[in-house]
């Protein structure tokens, strides 16, 4: 029951933060950004044309009123219309979000599949050749620019070999979708794989020297049982936390990956909207990102409380 209260408390805490974020982004965009109407119509537009567009888009009203409309809209899920694309923002978000979510989850999955066994081996054979190799690879992966790796993969597997599409999103069915996502997901997962491998390696190396592992062995249980219930089980705590934290980070990386591979997700939408000075979209996206990240953090905390019985509320 304590846990439920804790979850509710955390959800309630998110609301004020989102509120502050919405104020910040709304007013900052308006103050420092420059007039959207003028930017849409271009430098040669007449004053009256600009004025007309302003009225049409509701930009002539006082800022506070505009903000209030925005705020009200959030609850009704009506976020206004995209200034450049002439469609409802909420429609845009609904259409684009699944792509980014699928990309992020696919990347995380790839990262986990590779980092678990490799990280375990590196930790078990600490300081041996295998360990040093993995640690070096980790460093290299973290230091490489993701857009470069993405481009290279696209050149090699997309253009030269033709195994995978060189960008673009084929929505036809799950298979084609996965095919569109594979190269981007590999690109995005590299850094995470490296971080997870390093964490698993450190955990395994440390935990293997813990007294409780030796005590467990002293009972005569099989090595596989020691591995599963004692080493892995305890290593999972920091591993799972790291995955969750980095999923939030990967949402940020989606901006770059989606641009490189021309995927219609919210990352690319963000970039396009910024270039088009499409404030309606940008402010909604910022709120969306903030909300997603805080949701992921909440899930992280909840997962953690299940994994580690020592945590209290």
């Amino acid at each position, binding site marked *: 029951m304590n846990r439920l209260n804790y979850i509710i408390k955390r959800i309630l805490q998110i609301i004020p*933060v989102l509120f*502050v*974020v919405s104020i*910040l*982004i709304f007013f*900052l*965009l308006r103050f*420092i*950004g420059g007039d959207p109407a003028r930017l849409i119509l271009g430098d040669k537009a007449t004053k009256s044309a600009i004025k007309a567009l302003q009225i049409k888009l509701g930009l002539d009203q006082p800022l506070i009123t505009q903000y209030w409309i925005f705020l009200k809209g959030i609850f009704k899920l009506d976020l206004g219309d995209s200034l450049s694309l002439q469609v409802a923002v909420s429609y845009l978000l609904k259409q684009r979000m699944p792509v980014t979510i699928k990309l992020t989850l696919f990347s995380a999955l790839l990262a986990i599949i590779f980092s678990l066994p490799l990280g375990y081996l590196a930790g078990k054979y600490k300081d041996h050749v295998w360990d040093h190799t993995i*640690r070096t690879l980790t*460093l*290299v992966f*973290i*230091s*490489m*620019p*993701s*857009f*470069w*790796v993405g*481009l*290279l993969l*696209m*050149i090699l597997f997309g*253009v030269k070999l033709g195994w995978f599409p*060189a960008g673009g999103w084929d929505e036809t069915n799950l298979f084609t979708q996965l095919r569109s996502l594979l190269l981007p997901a590999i690109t995005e997962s590299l850094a995470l794989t490296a971080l997870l491998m390093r964490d698993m390696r450190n955990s395994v190396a440390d935990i293997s020297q813990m007294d409780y592992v030796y005590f467990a062995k002293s009972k005569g249980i099989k090595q596989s049982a020691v591995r599963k219930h004692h080493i892995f089980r305890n290593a999972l705590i920091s591993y799972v936390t790291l995955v969750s934290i980095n999923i*939030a*980070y*990967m*949402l*940020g*990386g989606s*901006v*770059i990956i989606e*641009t490189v591979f021309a995927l219609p997700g919210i990352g690319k939408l*963000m*970039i396009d909207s*910024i*270039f088009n000075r499409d404030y309606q979209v*940008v402010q909604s996206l*910022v709120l969306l*990102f*903030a909300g997603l*990240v*805080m949701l992921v*953090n909440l899930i992280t905390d909840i997962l953690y409380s299940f994994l580690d019985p020592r945590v209290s509320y």
Partner: protein
Amino acid sequence: MINIKTKIETRDKKRKPLPDWMQKPTFVVGLVIVIMFVFIALFPGALTNQDPLEINVAEALQKPNSHHLFGTDEYGRDIYTRILYGARIDLAMGVFGVLIPLVIGGILGLIAGYYGGLFDTIVMRIIDVLMAFPFTILVIVIMSILGAGIRNVFIALWLVGWMSYTRLVRGEVMKAKNTEYIQAAKVEGFTDKRILLRHLLPNVISSAVVFAASDVVLCMLTGASMSFLGLGVQLPAPEWGAILNEGRSYISYAWWITLFPGLFLAFNGVGFSLLGDSLTDLLRRKGR
């Protein structure tokens, strides 16, 4: 088993210890790479005699050859030369993108951690709100508000970067605050300022510096990403991310425009990462 024993004993006699830092190959390699990077940034002219901005359409889109080591771009500019001259931009983004946050964030963390109270609460609340965003998104959002250009890249990096250092230093200060070492200094009547500067700072700074080493990579890559997206450094400046963006249009046949700038980014990123990683190890060992 007798074999293991004699093997161990003979190996024991052969060893003669080197100074700590020289023993770590990662540190040496990292240092060498970074020094090369700095050299190229400072003296690109020493390694090439061509002009990074000179347009020569006749020589456009040439494959790597003896005259143009890394080939040419769509305007006939020598890629190799452009990369060399671009080094200073990327290095600056990495180093100066970290330096200001390190100093400002560190000071904020010192004060917040030591004095606590309202200042601490306010600072931490701000951090809580802003840290709700991934680093890249925050930078992009700030760029969207401020507009493109290298000056804004730095401002964005500074506005976002200080938070990690404040959290780090604040945490270390709060841990150190209660050690006997600091209590003793207080009892001896040292002023707060003196305690902060002479006693706390040297102890908490090591973890911040280590973090800074890997943060340099992050700032450099983020700055390059911004240029790649068209938000950061604008062409014709030969920043590596911008060149990569250029190369996208010719990706199917002029692969050299894509390969080499990224290679340099990766290589130098690895150099700083190696440095940061081995610094962590060295400092950990020294603290023992």
